[in-house]
């Protein structure tokens, strides 16, 4: 999905630069050619049908070329293409996230659940990011289709990781699903994106993408 968003950005940027160059060209040309010293008597044209048709048709064509890929992406983002390999749950609390992995448990009680609190400024080690590091990261396998169900236990929160192209409101009593495909291993940061109280700024999100094998090892270590 992140790939799609970036591609759309590049598509739109093409038009953006095209328009920018054209507008600058006209602007500078007008300033240059119609300078009061060169052209002391202004022309008094008030109407031109041809040019009006042109400047109506061309912008609408450009808008169409932007709209088509935008809508395609918009609807593609909602669609669940394949069956996910893993379901995870992110539950917003005031003011921390709780993550649940329940694919591997065989009773209602023993799911793999942990809280993810921000590391306070005083405990940071060299190289760690202020207000972004957490004690327990959301660990996921890279290159696997993931389903994340986002909900909240108290007030509205929002689970957002910009690098993965994901932002999803956490609403109490409702499960919102997002599909994630992390394309490379790494650590991805995000923050709560719905104002949720005093410590809204202090409940960051950290996603750690591992290879599938490392992920399995991690689950084993966490579970037993």
């Amino acid at each position: 999905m992140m790939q799609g968003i970036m591609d759309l950005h590049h598509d739109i940027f093409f038009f953006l630069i095209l328009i920018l160059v054209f507008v600058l060209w006209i602007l500078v040309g007008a300033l240059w050619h119609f300078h009061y010293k060169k052209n002391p008597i202004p022309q008094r044209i008030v109407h031109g049908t041809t040019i009006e048709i042109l400047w109506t048709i061309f912008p609408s064509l450009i808008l169409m070329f932007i709209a088509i890929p935008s809508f395609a992406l918009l609807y593609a983002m909602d669609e669940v293409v394949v069956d996910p390999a893993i379901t995870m749950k992110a539950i917003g609390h005031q003011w921390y996230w709780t993550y649940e992995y329940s694919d591997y448990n065989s009773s209602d009680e023993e799911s793999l659940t942990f809280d993810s609190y921000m590391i306070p400024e005083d405990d940071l080690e060299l190289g760690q990011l202020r207000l972004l590091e957490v004690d327990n990261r959301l660990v996921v396998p890279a290159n696997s289709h993931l389903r994340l169900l986002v909900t909240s236990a108290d007030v509205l929160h929002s689970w957002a990781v910009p690098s993965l192209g994901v932002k999803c409101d956490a609403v109490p009593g409702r499960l919102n699903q997002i599909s994630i495909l992390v394309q490379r291993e790494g650590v991805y940061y995000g923050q709560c994106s719905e104002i949720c109280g005093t410590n809204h700024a202090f409940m960051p999100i950290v996603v750690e993408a591992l290879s599938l094998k490392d992920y399995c090892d991690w689950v084993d270590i966490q579970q037993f």
Partner: protein
Amino acid sequence: MATETPTLSERYELKGKEEKTDVVSNPVEVKEEETPVTAVSEEAVEKAEEAPPLAAEEKTEDTPSAAEESTEAPTTDESSSEDAPAAAEETNEGTEENSGEEAAEEKKEIKLETAPADYRFPTTNQTRHCFTRYIEYHRCVAAKGEGASECDKFAKYYRSLCPSEWVERWNEQRANGTFPGPLDPCPGQRSLSSDYLTEAVALY
């Protein structure tokens, strides 16, 4: 975008992991797309490399859901002596006491499968998906009896989908008799899931 210029901490964190090859994850992708419906157990990519026959055997086990538990250990024992406990564990996945203990012994045994995408719930809002799976499980148990193997998959699905807090609350409500959903199985129904589907559609 941020990943292209890794920050200092990212560079620190992934030193050890970047060296590892990406080979492991690729075969999983392929497998997943081959049989999306049966929810292939891709747990053992590393195992598949060691013993290819086992991977094939797992597939055959997964497809018939009803016959899965009835043909317990005997079929799996044939393959090889060392793999037998692992395979046996998978077949008994649903029986609650066993799998916990055996999984503790077999360290590498997690089964990468989860509730499949359900065409009844194609939207972002999955609240009803979770609720429906929970009801389906309990109606299944009511119809087939406690510990019926057909119901295990519903149990896995609702556990995957529902937050444990919700499940706890619903379990309490069921114990108190205040659960708001339809838990009794209808007597003359053909298939539980298709029956519920009509009900779910009627709700919209």
